[in-house]
């Protein structure tokens, strides 16, 4: 029940958008939608989302395969390093690249930065799935004469589809809603159009019409993904052995180039830029303030992570076990909302919050509600995936031995889903630490987070003062990131050692 309420909350932004879009009458809406610029922006948004998603799938799958299934040198280290770019906010990455080359701009610049920041969304679930695949299938394939590559394409890849598409959906919706990097790197998208409309003309109608457009397009993408997911079964018997490791021989050292290049581009560039800003500028941050802001960020992230997990568990179980039109609808709505820019969601909650929840408006609970609306699908997705991978046969066995449905859920389903619950919580924490627009408008007065402090410093060009905050965001966000990569591996190791 509380979960349905939470799912209902995610409808608020859509209701708000519909209201604002139509308040000046339908002719205004149709006129805006019919403009050439609107179509251009939509085309550019979709092109970027498609490119980034595809690039993330290629990079994420290749990296996961190298790390899990080959004798790549230092694979344990790479397994951790490969997930870390998730901790780097896209706006920090974009700033860093601009520090290296002020002319770094346009479509390819934006596509590259967004790919570097979001490929772990694909890498992590695919790596976990690769460890779970039963090696027996591959042995059969190899024994029938298929090459290693052929086996990968025809046997492993189909089994990775589920993991890869869930990550891809995350990347696609994130790219559609992203503002910081596309704006810094001067690539015009629908989201940027929404910000321009608020910032330039203080006119909320075009912003809302664009928001509705974005929501409608995402709904199509999400629906398509939902349909292709189909009614396939994604659980199998837990493999009895460790996955087969392919010997790369001389290619080993060449293969290292991939994780090494990614780490250099996604991690070393921001690190270097941070050092450069610190060294160059005359301003400096007060360490006490960095620590206070870090603690505030961490606190909000914990609340948000726990709140999202709490609401997401029933939704995730429902989506995995009892597919119905309702569970499907709820899931799709949360994804659609995830594709909306943070500012739109923040303003919709300003609108409803001040009218319906005035006592908590601009208080911590209201901010946490905003985070739930923004990030619920991250937790639902992770929990759904882990429930779907455990066999319902286990629950049936428990039921046949006399457990009630509730007890079976508590004793079987939830413990099996724990890694997913942990990963979902961590994903939300990670996103919360990096979040800016909703935090700024809805935080309790005077509560400075790392992200708001970074904004405070950069908005007046004090880059040296900003540097420690940028570094601290990455460090704090690295904690949940490490937890995610650990959980996704520990599940598989457990299974492999049974």
């Amino acid at each position, binding site marked *: 029940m509380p979960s349905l309420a939470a799912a209902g909350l995610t409808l608020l932004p859509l209701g708000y958008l519909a209201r604002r879009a139509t308040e000046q009458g339908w002719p205004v809406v149709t006129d805006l939608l019919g403009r050439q610029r609107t179509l251009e922006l939509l085309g550019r948004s979709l092109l970027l989302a498609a490119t980034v998603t595809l690039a993330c799938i290629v990079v994420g799958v290749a990296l996961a395969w190298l790390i899990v299934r080959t004798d790549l040198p230092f694979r344990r280290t790479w397994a951790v390093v490969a997930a870390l770019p998730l901790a780097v906010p896209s706006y920090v990455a974009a700033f860093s690249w601009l520090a290296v080359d*002020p002319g770094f701009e346009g479509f390819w610049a934006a596509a590259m930065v967004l790919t570097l920041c979001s490929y772990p969304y694909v890498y992590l679930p695919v790596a976990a799935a690769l460890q779970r695949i039963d090696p027996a299938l591959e042995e059969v394939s190899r024994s029938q004469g298929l090459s290693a590559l052929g086996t990968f394409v025809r046997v492993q890849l189909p089994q990775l589809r589920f993991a890869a598409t869930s990550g891809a959906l995350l990347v696609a919706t994130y790219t559609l809603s992203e503002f910081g990097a596309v704006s810094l790197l001067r690539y015009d998208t629908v989201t940027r159009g929404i910000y321009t409309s608020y910032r330039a003309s*203080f006119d909320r109608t075009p912003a809302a019409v664009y928001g509705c457009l974005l929501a409608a397009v995402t709904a199509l993408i999400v629906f398509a993904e939902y349909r292709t997911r189909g009614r396939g079964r994604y659980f199998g018997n837990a493999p009895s052995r460790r996955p087969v490791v392919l010997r790369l021989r001389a290619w080993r050292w060449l293969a290292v180039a991939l994780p090494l290049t990614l780490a250099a581009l996604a991690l070393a560039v921001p690190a270097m830029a941070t050092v450069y800003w610190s060294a160059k500028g005359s301003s400096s941050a007060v360490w006490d303030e960095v620590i206070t802001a870090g603690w505030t960020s961490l606190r909000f992230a914990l609340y948000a992570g726990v709140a999202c997990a709490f609401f997401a568990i029933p939704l995730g179980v429902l989506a995995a076990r009892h597919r119905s039109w309702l569970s499907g609808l709820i899931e799709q709505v949360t994804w659609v909302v995830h594709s909306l820019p943070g500012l739109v969601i923040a*303003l919709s909650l300003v609108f409803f919050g001040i009218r319906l929840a005035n006592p908590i408006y601009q208080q911590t*609970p209201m901010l946490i509600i905003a985070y739930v609306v923004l990030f619920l699908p991250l937790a639902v997705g992770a929990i759904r995936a882990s429930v779907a991978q455990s066999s319902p046969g286990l629950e049936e066995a428990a039921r046949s031995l006399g457990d009630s449905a509730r007890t079976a859920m508590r004793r079987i389903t939830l*413990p099996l889903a724990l*890694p997913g619950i*942990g990963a979902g*919580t961590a994903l939300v924490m990670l996103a919360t630490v990096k979040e800016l627009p909703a935090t*700024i408008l809805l935080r309790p007065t*005077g509560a400075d987070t790392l992200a708001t402090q970074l904004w405070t410093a950069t908005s007046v060009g004090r880059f040296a003062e900003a540097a420690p905050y940028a570094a601290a965001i990455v460090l704090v966000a690295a904690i949940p990131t490490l937890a995610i990569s650990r959980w996704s591996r520990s599940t598989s190791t457990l299974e492999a050692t049974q």
Partner: protein
Amino acid sequence: MGSVLSSSIFARLIGARRTVALIGIPLLTFGVAGCGAIGGGSGDADLTIYSGRAESLVADLITDFEDSSGLEVEVRYAETPELAAQLLEEGDSTSADVFYSQDGGALGALSKEGLFTKLPDDLISAVDPKYRATDSTWVGVSGRARVFVYNPDEVEPPKSVYELTGPEWAGKVGYAPTNASFQSFVTAMRVLAGEEKTREFLIGLKQNGKVYEDNGVTLDAVEAGEISLGLVNHYYLFERQAEAGDTPLNTQMAFAEPGDPSSLINVAGVGILEGSDDLEAAEEFVTYLLSDEGQQFFATTTFEYPLVAGIDAAEGVPPLSSIKGPKIDLSDLDDLQATQELLAEVGMI
């Protein structure tokens, strides 16, 4: 089979104990902190200000006001347009008493929606009518001029900003297209010269110029010899000079001939919200901003122009009355949409 199954679940549970702790403990904290926050609440302050001006610029000013008035002030900082949007959504229920905006455009937009209450005439009459709303709903408190900063060893400043598109300026000009003041200047050009001429100018400027993140970085580039001329706000040069102390800078500033859009003067200002329940305190704040003390703060600390007659700008800053900017109504600059679309079209932002 059964034992294998249960032992595997057992193994998971042991492995998961830490997870449970990780989730459970914060859940408890969440509950406790949540209740605390509801109980504590804010709104205890005598005055709530939504400030679109940066904390680093105005925090000291607000502290000075607290000291002199004995009032407790709460300030929420964000970008001016975001706060304007928030105030539009909050409507009359807002807890804000005063909106302190970085530019006149946002004040004009909120005034149009009827969010501001009228300011008493005796309070704002000291400010030149050019720099306040005709219906007295908002008042400018400090001004900034757009200027050329240039290296006199390298170039002579142009008479008009349009000259900068000529071939002799190739690679020598710096500007910050995402900066709100730059966009106001482009808007002024659109109002004065029309879309077509502005587009031509922007295309020419893009070819000749280098893009910087903001005014400060643009000025630094002139100072470092990377470029010869920059389009910035006047006070950056004086901030740099104050930082450098007695060491002379390589950079000087100049204005174009009278009426040129490049010498636009824009203001930061305030309005009192219709929904304010601390009207007296709000008016006291506006009075303070326009008092000698408040105006001196702008002159000496931010090197902006005081807008109250009789108070001079900082030493070395050319007097406001000497700047012959374009004849334009600041409230005509509230529609930046077309400007931003134009800037996007030519690929500047």
